[in-house]
């Protein structure tokens, strides 16, 4: 009887390799193909000889380092001064919504705000006396400042969400409060306790999210196409343009550039680890020196920073809606001369694009959740840590490198350019996010419910379908929404694996980003942001309804 009541049966455990292989084999094959494609001596010679390489490489590394360091510094500063306050509770509640905004849609909104004919310079025009857009590079600037700003505004909510996830469990929250009080009772200010005691314990647990921020910042393509430098562009943009070239030799050079980028990401991570190890003894001495420094009043600066960030976010998204109907809008007017819904008529006329986007996202989000559930039903919780390197590979390996390999795999399977190939490619990206989103609730499910159901004579399948999954409906719906958002945001894999045959709102928006149809660009970008928002809203509603039904509101 004891064996029959175990949370995960021996029979089920034997099946662990099915979800593992379904996810890992295509991923490993893609990485292998990406490596193999880059092992062309001629391609490396051409890459090294390319005059744009040194500056593009420096830009990629510089943008990545700046975005990571600034995002981390802002996150540490905000949490140190806000955690435990009502403002922190409000911020924590909005993080999910901020994360659901696709990078490309946000970048387009930010570009509409910052560009020479954008809202900010229109507001400044009466003061500066401008009657036409000034000749300044406020986006696509040669140093990548606009791109860094966009990345920081997207990555700070991501890091805050990770910090909140670390501190949210009841035991962690109680221990944090008591540790803060213990340090303060010894005469340290709360900020001092954070810097000396709490961050040294928390930061190692943020290593993977930080690595993801660094990898994304150094290798981003979609945001860089909208905000990044153009002459030369970043190395990721160069690699992407070479991979799309019709000439196979140029493709090989792109594959080599993608591998070089992966090497830069890995080297950067190793250098950061080495720097932390070298600095640790010095920091330890500082932590226990015993000096009680009075904390300065940072509350105004924190409020100003949070307010500015929220304002930029709100304006960027509101501008998407506004510009999508701004038919004629001459500089420096603050209101368009002609309001037109032509762009939305254009969007409505291309319903297949919306259909592709939603269909692909629904299918790949469902696949991602299915794989995540299958993995967790067939493995003990401790195995998540073993799987972490593979799970995080899609977030840590530069996208240009991964999709180059993925394309080769799809060619081999004769799925290139097909919807099936796209569905498989998107699922490879949705599954890890679904697992990360679902694991805390799924792994934390009280095993005694299964023991009770089995003791009442119910089968495992009946327990899953009638007890466990209905009880976990809210986290399952959230994980589905996360997968949906990940799929909608896919640009590189959609373009490359789909061979340009299957347009989505994301590919349409990014194609329009390089042209002059501003209203249509804004409409597609808004649609890109609205689709995941709708699914997140539905998941939230479902979760609330289920919580009311189960009487779980207070938990």
């Amino acid at each position, binding site marked *: 009887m004891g064996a029959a009541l175990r949370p995960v049966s021996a029979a089920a455990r034997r099946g662990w390799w099915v979800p593992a292989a379904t996810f890992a084999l295509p991923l490993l094959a893609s990485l292998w193909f990406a490596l193999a494609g880059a092992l062309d001596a001629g391609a490396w010679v051409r890459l090294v000889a390319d005059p744009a390489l040194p500056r593009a490489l420096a830009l990629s590394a510089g943008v990545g380092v700046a975005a990571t360091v600034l995002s981390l510094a802002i996150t540490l500063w905000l949490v140190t001064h806000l955690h435990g306050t009502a403002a922190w509770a409000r911020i924590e509640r909005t993080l999910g919504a901020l994360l659901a905004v696709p990078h490309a849609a946000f970048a387009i909104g930010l570009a509409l705000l910052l560009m020479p004919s954008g809202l900010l310079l229109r507001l400044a025009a009466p003061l500066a006396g401008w009657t036409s857009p000034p000749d300044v590079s406020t986006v696509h600037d040669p140093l990548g400042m606009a791109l860094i700003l966009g990345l920081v505004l997207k990555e700070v909510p991501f890091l805050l969400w990770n910090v909140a996830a670390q501190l949210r469990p009841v035991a962690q929250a109680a*221990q944090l409060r*008591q*540790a803060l*009080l*213990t*340090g*303060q*009772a*010894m*005469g*340290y*200010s*709360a900020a001092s306790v954070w810097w*000396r*005691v709490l961050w*040294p*314990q928390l930061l190692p647990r943020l290593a993977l999210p930080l690595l993801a921020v660094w990898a994304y910042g150094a290798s981003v393509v979609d945001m860089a196409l909208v905000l990044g430098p153009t002459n030369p562009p970043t190395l990721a943009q160069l690699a992407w343009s070479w991979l799309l070239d019709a000439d196979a030799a140029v493709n090989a050079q792109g594959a080599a550039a993608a591998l070089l980028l992966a090497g830069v990401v890995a080297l950067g991570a190793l250098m950061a680890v080495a720097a932390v190890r070298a600095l640790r003894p010095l920091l*330890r001495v500082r*932590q*226990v*020196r*015993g*000096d*009680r420094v009075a904390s300065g009043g940072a509350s105004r600066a924190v409020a100003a920073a949070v307010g500015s960030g929220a304002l930029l976010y709100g304006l960027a998204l509101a501008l998407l809606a506004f510009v999508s109907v701004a038919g004629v809008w001459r500089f420096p007017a603050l209101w368009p001369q002609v309001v037109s819904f032509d762009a939305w008529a254009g969007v409505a006329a291309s319903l297949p694009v919306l259909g592709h986007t939603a269909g692909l996202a629904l299918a790949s989000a469902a696949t991602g959740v299915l794989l995540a559930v299958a993995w967790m039903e067939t493995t003990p919780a401790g195995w998540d840590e073993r799987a972490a390197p593979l799970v995080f590979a899609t977030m840590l390996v530069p996208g240009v490198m991964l999709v180059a390999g993925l394309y080769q795999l799809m060619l081999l399977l004769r799925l290139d350019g097909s919807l099936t190939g796209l569905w498989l490619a998107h699922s490879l990206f949705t599954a890890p996010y679904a697992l990360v989103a679902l694991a805390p609730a799924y792994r934390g499910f009280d095993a005694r419910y299964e023991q009770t159901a089995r003791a009442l004579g119910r089968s495992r399948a009946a327990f899953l379908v009638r007890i466990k999954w209905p009880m976990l409906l809210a986290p399952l719906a959230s994980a589905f929404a996360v997968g949906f958002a990940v799929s909608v945001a896919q640009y590189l894999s959609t373009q490359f694996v789909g061979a340009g045959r299957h347009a989505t709102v994301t590919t349409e928006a990014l194609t329009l980003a390089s042209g002059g149809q501003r209203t249509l660009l804004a409409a597609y970008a808004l649609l890109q942001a609205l689709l995941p928002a709708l699914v997140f809203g539905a998941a939230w509603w479902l979760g609330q309804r289920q919580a009311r039904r189960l009487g779980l509101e207070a938990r």
Partner: protein
Amino acid sequence: MLELHGITLATPQRTLIGGLTATVGPGEVLVVMGESGSGKSSLLAFLCGALPAGLAASGSVRVDGREVTDLPTAQRRIGILFQDDLLFPHLSVLENLLFALPAGRDAERRSVAEAALASADLAGYGPRLPHTLSGGQRSRVSVLRALLAQPRALLLDEPFSRLDMALRQRFRAFVFERLRAQGVPAVLVTHDAHDVPPGARVIRLDDEEPAP
């Protein structure tokens, strides 16, 4: 000397503590007992300046004649010990003690911390990380750390309740002996009558009058 005067704590629904007045002399222990939810831990939170939102409070707290009621926790010089030892896991035992010691010359601070360890039969444990110590050893280090910060009063929030009976008895004796030796007044919150040191005054939050 710790002086509590007219302390009243209330939730929006009811009064938890009404007008508590007591004086705790150097090395004395004032024991606060009561049912769960009677306001024992809220009283300690008020005394150290960390009253949770939703509780209203009035009254005053004086430490060595100095009014501290409106001071932030860091300026009150009132230490606190919880059920968990709360040693910082990333710092060695010695570094945990150095964290508590006031700033000064490095060699002097180290020798004070090492002497404290030796006085608690923990000589040689300084370089070890907290998780390598037994529960009883960690508890002793947490008391040493709280006292090395030179508090003018110490709050004890059920610090014995996690320990088994044999260890508990020894740890109680260790804590009360240290408090007497250093002349630190303390407020002990507990459920267990066995925790009450001989001769200590006890307040039951249902009657709020110090027993003689």
